[in-house]
């Protein structure tokens, strides 16, 4: 039988944790679920059990903030269910998760979704070769696992994580072969005015750049990766200057860098599978990372009792995620009748002001990583777009030429997005390819989300299920 609770928070990053703490403080019976080993989300990722961060690493602001957050959660009334992946959410709200000890289910009167992001990587020949990893992925390796992806690493893509990862590698004693930035100086200059809102973060960014310079790492701005060489492992990375449409020009390969690993990322994409599954309204905002749920000032979605916060509802960075999460948690408490209108308005007013400030910086950073639609145009015909099902660009173009006009048709015709990643790695590329033919991303639409949101081992389904646990649509009212 599912546990009856007031509030379920999905995601234990800065947004989800702030929401859960705020709601629990006002008496809401709150469960927060996350598939990671410990709460903290991506930016405050904890080191593994019985591992201890040393020296400089232990002094990093994210590490300290993360440890403080985990301590606050421990002394709070929030029940934290880590290592549980939520695979189904039904109206009402019935939430199903699978964890190390099997199946769990909850019935919650309100839900806050704080599901964060996944990484966008625009395909190029060789991007599936072992040794090519995401840029955000590299922050996990460095920060939480104390590991590097290789001996000779090229760092490429766009946005502030480039310098962060590059400097992290220098500090680890493995200075990267090069840092390759799609953005030219102009793009960074345009972001400057908004950056003034967070002088502390600007100082940190300049510190990363100085560390790279001191280590003699070439910083190639206005360049991008056109191919990776190697079959079962990376042997070299080919890079070229970026043309005026923002895409690297394969015909003008400037350098071939010998390397055994490539770290590459083209921005983050809000994880909307849960808001899609619950059929909340969405809109497409390129600068916010893509499709995001429509929210009002109280973080409420178009579905009553369903709230969303953090980067999963539009990219704005960790500081904004925390403030927005707190607003969502308070709004959920108000919805539950545990916080009256007067106190709610009084408490959220300063949070909204802080959020506006935090967003100015976060959104300027997000703009540096906004999708560059021309990039998908340069993907070679035989390059794999859907990693799970090995669907190439040519197969996608054939389906479009034969009449696929929106994302669900494209999926049915090509199997692109049908594999175990549930389309999380290929949706952005497939949608951008389709958008070129149907008049834009809005027209191309989104994949309909379906349970299970995460792959379920069949044995878990069979072994752990009672009849009551099987998600069934509500019967129609008589």
């Amino acid at each position, binding site marked *: 039988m599912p546990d009856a609770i007031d509030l379920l928070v999905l995601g234990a990053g800065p947004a989800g944790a702030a929401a859960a703490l705020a709601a629990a403080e006002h008496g809401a019976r709150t469960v927060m679920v996350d598939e990671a080993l410990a709460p903290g989300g991506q930016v405050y990722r904890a080191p593994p059990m019985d591992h201890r961060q040393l020296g400089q690493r232990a002094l990093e602001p994210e590490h300290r903030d993360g440890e403080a957050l985990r301590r606050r959660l421990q002394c709070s009334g929030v029940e934290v269910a880590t290592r549980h992946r939520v695979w189904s959410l039904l109206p009402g709200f019935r939430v199903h998760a699978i964890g190390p000890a099997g199946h769990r289910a909850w019935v919650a009167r309100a839900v806050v979704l704080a599901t964060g992001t996944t990484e966008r990587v625009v395909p190029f020949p060789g991007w599936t070769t072992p040794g090519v990893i995401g840029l955000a992925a590299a922050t996990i390796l460095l920060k939480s*696992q104390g590991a590097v992806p290789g001996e000779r690493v090229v760092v490429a893509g766009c946005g502030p994580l480039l310098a962060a990862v590059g400097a992290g590698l220098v500090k680890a004693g493995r200075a990267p072969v090069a840092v390759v930035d799609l953005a030219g100086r102009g793009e960074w200059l345009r972001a400057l005015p908004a950056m003034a809102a967070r002088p502390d973060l600007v100082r940190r960014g300049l510190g990363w750049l100085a560390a790279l310079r001191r280590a003699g790492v070439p910083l190639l701005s206005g360049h991008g990766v056109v191919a990776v060489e190697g079959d079962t492992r990376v042997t070299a990375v080919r890079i070229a200057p970026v043309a005026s449409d923002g895409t690297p020009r394969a015909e003008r390969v400037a350098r071939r860098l010998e390397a055994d690993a490539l770290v590459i990322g083209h921005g983050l994409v809000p994880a909307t599978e849960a808001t899609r599954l619950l059929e909340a309204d969405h809109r497409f905002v390129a600068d916010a990372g893509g499709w995001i749920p429509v929210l009002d000032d109280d973080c409420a979605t178009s579905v009553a009792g369903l709230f969303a916060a953090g980067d999963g509802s539009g990219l704005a960075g960790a500081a904004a995620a925390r403030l927005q999460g707190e607003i969502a948690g308070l709004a959920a408490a108000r919805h539950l009748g545990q916080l009256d209108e007067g106190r709610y308005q009084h408490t959220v007013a300063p949070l909204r002001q802080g959020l506006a400030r935090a967003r100015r910086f976060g959104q300027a950073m997000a703009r540096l990583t906004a999708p560059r639609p021309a990039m998908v145009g340069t993907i070679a015909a035989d390059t794999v777009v859907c990693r799970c099902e090995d669907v190439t660009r040519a197969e996608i173009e054939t389906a479009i030429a034969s009449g696929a006009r929106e994302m669900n048709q494209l999926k049915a015709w090509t199997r692109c997005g049908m594999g175990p990643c549930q389309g999380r790695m290929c949706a952005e590329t497939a949608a951008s390819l389709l958008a070129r033919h149907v008049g834009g991303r809005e027209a191309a639409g989104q994949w309909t989300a379906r349970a299970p949101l995460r792959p379920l081992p069949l044995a878990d389904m069979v072994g752990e299920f009672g009849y009551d646990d099987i998600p069934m649509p509500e019967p129609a009212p008589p």
Partner: protein
Amino acid sequence: MSTRIETEIARPDTVTIEVDGRPLSAHPGESLAVALLAAGIRALRASPRAGGARGAFCFMGACQECVVTVDGRRVTSCLEPVRAGMRVRLGLG
């Protein structure tokens, strides 16, 4: 040189796990994908249609490229903590 950074993290003593029948030393609690990387094992499986070599990619449990079999269960190795005696089978076969 190891892909583990020794100066930044103190790890518990190593234990032995089994990878495709061969013993491998790894630190309990660390990500299995990280332990495999440190042993120079990068190709973890073959893609189903074209048979191309694949390895850990997103390190956050999303992409499923790092799926291996541990004690008979399919798991994302990036999120799977190392435990003494765990039996790992790579999906290259």
